[in-house]
């Protein structure tokens, strides 16, 4: 029996090609995703060791969200040199490394800034704690010396010995490149490039001369926990000490979680692609069984039992599945190498040093591919087992275009029940099951869609001529096959539509909610530098900028919680930005008085949670007393005279003090933040002008007032695009399915095609006939996917509205949907290219050959 199976596979190799391609594509994608994710995970986890390998005690912010590198967080607390000195003086501590980063850029000879995304870093002098290696040259040790990372050097053509102008918070600074650095397997520690700055310059260039650090790492001898206990006593408020082991575990987990989530997500798409491949496999084997009916019948006649027939088909499936999966794993590996190569050629690189063949990925791919293939062959195998010996004597396979009544009833029941459950269901489970039932109904009913849709399109296609008419007739000759082919496409289009419609609806809702909270037009922040009067007047000179409200801001803790306190011209602030009191009055500010963010439950009614870094647990009210502590540990009590209504702007302000009190606490520091009010006018020109000003000052970041709304919109857009891109994978496999079905059907109809050509249908028209049929199948699959996607998306939105307070209005991206439809038909035409050419290459004389 096995020999029969193998010879059959060999004999029918051409027919199995599409099946193989489907499996190889799916499995290849699956394993490639696995390989790449593992490599990224390994590398991210490995970087943790490279970066923090010798850390025994990590002094990090208490708020876990503000990890190292979050230099742009305006509310960031710093560790002062005093605290560091006390930490280093502890017994058992042998060395330490402070992390201080800031934005820097280079000024080119042409006066334009380059490498504007680079991060300046204080060079770590402790060799055990230094995360960077010096590849060539030496470490920056004296004033005016810097080192750049390998990537930056390559990209910008920088070399050791070059004299450059660095744009820093302190202004334009001349510097000499003395070394080229790298980090672990990769070039740079930071995304936009790393510029290492000597201790002599770093505090001036990155932190306005203040000797402060974002985080501090210590190494020492003895038990880590003992060291931590010691350190706890001198760790400044807002920070905590952690053992190096715990710290590394946390970092590794953060890095690994991201990688693992990514891997799972991508592999889900690969599995989806494989499931779509299942349709292709099912279809191919169905056709193969139909074509081999005579052969099977002869086998049955000479004594093969139904079980043997079934098993022979299943073994064929198994053989194809195993071969396809093995090829798929190989393809996955090759794909990974190719991707690596392409990235390398384009000047990028995958993280990690090399791709290792993970056993789990290989086994997963093999099992998945084989199982799906064997499962897809089940039904055709059962059909084969039912072959009657008498069928050997029949002339040709009788094509049935009859559809049973039960199918119709089941389809109707599933669709109606599914929609009903979705629309009135009260739990996620009911709604989910309802949607599943609805989709099952669509699948079961697909042959009706094929039949009905083809009939409806007949008048249009008949206008093309006889070939159009025949294309329609051919597609409904075996509506089940047409339906299975179209279903493969349906799944992909359904999901694309669902994601597009549901995603856009959610996006519009979320962005709308955020934009309801009014805010200033622009927020200009200086990290480390200041917004001096010169810069303010430059901003005011930009056309259409009507008012600039600069204010001073300092990180503090209030009642032990990290937050910021600000001071500025109240009239400007309330006029330009959305800063107003929800209780008490801002006019009451004065010595010993403070206004804090309103954290009472009733103030949190807005849909978006904005209370980051505000006074939380206890409810502060007008009249309460709060304890404020600054960076250097000075503490003072204040009486609350006003609560500030939470808004996008007031979060930037945090708490408010009157200018004199602010001066007494922090000295006469210059403003670091400003709100901008812009007349409605040439929006993009104003934006460009402001950004141009900011580009020459690396410390300055400009955010548009509705930045959060835009950010949310961008995230949604990105997700929708990414998911759509991944779903296209399944569409590609569906395309293979159409090619396959069309190829097999022209093989079946070779006599008919021969006849048409004998009695005068030109080759062009024959090809057009095949193309039209293919396009019709693709159109039906796309359209039903589109409609079911639309229905499900709308049902989902309605359910969400019903179950929550939200009123999401469905937004349908019509243009994209039309695009999808056009694309679907185009794919159909594309899929027909090969079968159409083959259709006219068959010998005409087949029509005459008897028997």
């Amino acid at each position, binding site marked *: 029996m096995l020999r029969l199976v193998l010879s059959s596979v060999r004999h029918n190799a051409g027919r199995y090609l599409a099946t193989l391609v489907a499996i190889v594509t799916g499995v290849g994608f699956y394993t490639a995703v696995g390989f790449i994710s593992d490599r990224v995970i390994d590398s991210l986890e490995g970087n943790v060791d490279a970066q923090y390998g010798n850390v025994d005690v990590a002094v990090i912010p208490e708020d876990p969200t503000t990890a190292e590198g979050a230099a742009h967080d305006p509310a960031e607390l710093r560790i002062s040199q005093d605290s560091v000195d006390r930490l280093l003086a502890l017994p058992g501590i042998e060395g330490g490394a402070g992390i201080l980063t800031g934005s820097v850029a280079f000024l080119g000879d042409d006066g334009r800034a380059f490498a504007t995304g680079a991060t300046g870093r204080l060079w770590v002098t402790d060799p055990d704690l230094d995360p960077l290696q010096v590849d060539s040259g030496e470490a920056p040790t004296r004033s005016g010396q810097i080192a750049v990372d390998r990537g930056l050097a390559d990209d910008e053509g920088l070399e050791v010995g070059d004299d450059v102008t660095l744009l820093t918070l302190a202004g334009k600074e001349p510097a000499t490149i003395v070394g080229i650095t790298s980090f672990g397997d990769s070039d740079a520690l930071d995304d936009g490039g790393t510029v290492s700055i000597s201790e002599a310059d770093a505090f001036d260039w990155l932190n306005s001369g203040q000797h402060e650090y974002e985080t501090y790492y210590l190494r020492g001898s003895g038990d880590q926990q003992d060291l931590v206990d010691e350190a706890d006593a001198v760790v400044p408020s807002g920070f905590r000490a952690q053992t190096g082991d715990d710290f590394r575990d946390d970092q590794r987990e953060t890095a690994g979680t991201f990688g693992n989530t990514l891997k799972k997500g991508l592999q889900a798409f690969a599995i989806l692609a494989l499931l779509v491949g299942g349709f292709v496999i099912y279809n191919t084997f169905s056709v193969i069984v139909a074509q081999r009916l005579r052969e099977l019948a002869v086998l049955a006649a000479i004594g093969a039992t139904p079980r043997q027939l079934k098993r022979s088909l299943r073994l064929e499936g198994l053989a194809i599945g195993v071969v396809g999966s093995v090829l798929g794993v190989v393809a996955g590996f090759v794909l990974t190498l190719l991707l690596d190569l392409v990235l390398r050629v384009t000047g990028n690189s995958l993280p990690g040093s090399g791709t290792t063949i993970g056993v789990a990925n290989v086994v997963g791919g093999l099992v998945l591919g084989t199982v799906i293939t064997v499962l897809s062959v089940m039904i055709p195998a059962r059909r084969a087992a039912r072959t009657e010996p008498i069928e050997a004597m029949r002339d040709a396979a009788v094509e049935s275009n009859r559809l049973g009544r039960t199918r119709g009833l089941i389809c109707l029941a599933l669709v109606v029940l599914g929609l009903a459950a979705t629309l009135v269901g009260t739990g996620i489970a009911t709604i989910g099951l309802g949607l599943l039932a609805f989709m099952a109904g669509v699948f079961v009913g697909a042959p009706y869609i094929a039949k009905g849709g083809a009939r409806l399109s007949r008048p249009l296609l008949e206008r093309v001529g006889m070939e159009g008419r025949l294309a329609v007739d051919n597609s409904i000759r075996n509506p089940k096959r047409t339906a299975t082919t179209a279903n493969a496409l349906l799944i992909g289009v359904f999901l694309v539509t669902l994601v597009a419609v549901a995603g856009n609806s959610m996006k519009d809702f979320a962005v709308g909610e955020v934009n309801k909270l009014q805010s200033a037009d622009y927020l200009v922040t200086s990290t480390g530098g200041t917004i001096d009067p010169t810069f303010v007047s430059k901003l005011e000179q930009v056309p259409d900028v009507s008012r600039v409200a600069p204010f001073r801001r300092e990180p503090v803790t209030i009642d032990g919680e990290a937050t910021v306190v600000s001071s500025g011209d109240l009239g400007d602030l309330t006029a330009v930005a959305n800063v107003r009191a929800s209780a008490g009055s801002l006019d009451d500010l004065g010595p010993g008085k403070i206004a804090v963010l309103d954290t009472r439950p009733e103030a949190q009614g807005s849909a978006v949670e904005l209370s980051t870094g505000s006074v939380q647990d206890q409810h502060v009210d007008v009249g309460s007393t709060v304890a404020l502590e600054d960076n250097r540990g000075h503490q003072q009590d204040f009486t609350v005279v006003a609560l500030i209504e939470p808004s996008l702007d007031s979060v930037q302000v945090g708490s408010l003090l009157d200018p004199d009190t602010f001066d007494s606490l922090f000295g006469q520091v210059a403003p670091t933040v400003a709100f901008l009010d812009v007349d409605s006018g040439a929006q993009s020109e104003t934006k460009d002008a402001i950004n141009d000003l900011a580009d020459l000052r690396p410390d300055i970041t400009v955010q548009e007032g509705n930045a959060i709304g835009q950010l949310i919109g961008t995230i949604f857009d990105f997700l929708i695009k990414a998911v759509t891109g991944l779903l296209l994978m399944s569409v590609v496999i569906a395309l293979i399915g159409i090619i396959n079905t069309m190829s097999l059907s022209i093989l079946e109809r070779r006599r008919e095609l021969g006849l048409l050509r004998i*009695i*005068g249908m*030109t*080759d062009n028209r024959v090809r057009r006939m095949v193309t039209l049929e293919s396009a019709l199948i693709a159109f039906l699959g796309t359209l039903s996917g589109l409609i079911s996607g639309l229905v499900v998306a709308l049902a989902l939105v309605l359910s969400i509205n019903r179950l929550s307070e939200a009123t999401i209005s469905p937004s349908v991206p019509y243009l994209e949907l039309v695009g999808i439809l056009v694309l679907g038909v185009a794919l159909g035409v594309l899929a027909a290219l090969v079968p159409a050419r083959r259709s006219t290459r068959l010998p005409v*004389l087949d*029509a005459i050959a008897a028997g």
Partner: protein
Amino acid sequence: MPSASAPPVSTAARAVDARKTYGAGEAAVHALAGVTVSFPEREFTAIMGPSGSGKSTLMQCVAGLDRLTSGSAYIGDTDISQLNKTQLTLLRRDRLGFIFQQYNLIPSLTARENILLPMTLAGTRPDPEWFDTIVRTVGMGDRLGNLPSELSGGQQQRVAVARALVPRPDIVFADEPTGALDSRTGIEILSFMRRAVDETGQTIVMVTHDPHAASYANTVLFLEDGQIVDSMEAPTADRVLDRMKRFEG
């Protein structure tokens, strides 16, 4: 187009030193080894010969379904060896008709649509009177709306005959038209073909191995090993059978 005024002796199709070789060198098989033959207009010509004699190849090459290795074939005055694929298709569509052993109807088209298919493809309209005449002659008047799957083998072949005759082609080529039919139905089909020649001046070339079928022709050509070895005017089934027996002897 056959015209009633054409002289009865002119040829509808002919082959000159037609050769068809499969393979090359030692292994070459000569399906046609230099055949020169004319098929006169308004006549019913049968081609006979044992299996492998080249009779089907001869018909296929003259009908433009297959190409000669050397020599030439003409439909009327057109040298079809000079035509490209599309020109050949159009020539078949406009000037030739075909009847096959397997009826070769398009399963999704009704009997009427099948009959009119060549004209639909050409974008021409049938002469309604002529259509009625043919349909009546083949006796399919009441089944025109049926699909092929609803017709018996004999009925399907009548539809195929009607399809070949309705466009009034210069020549109808028939390849074993009665091969798949029982003898009574076969006789009916042959009678229609005979009447088409006698009553409408149709030219028919038929390949057959059935002496009875051949007896309906005006002339029988005998092929053996790719060459014409004999011909017989006014054949009867017995005389043809006798002649065929000599091939085996």
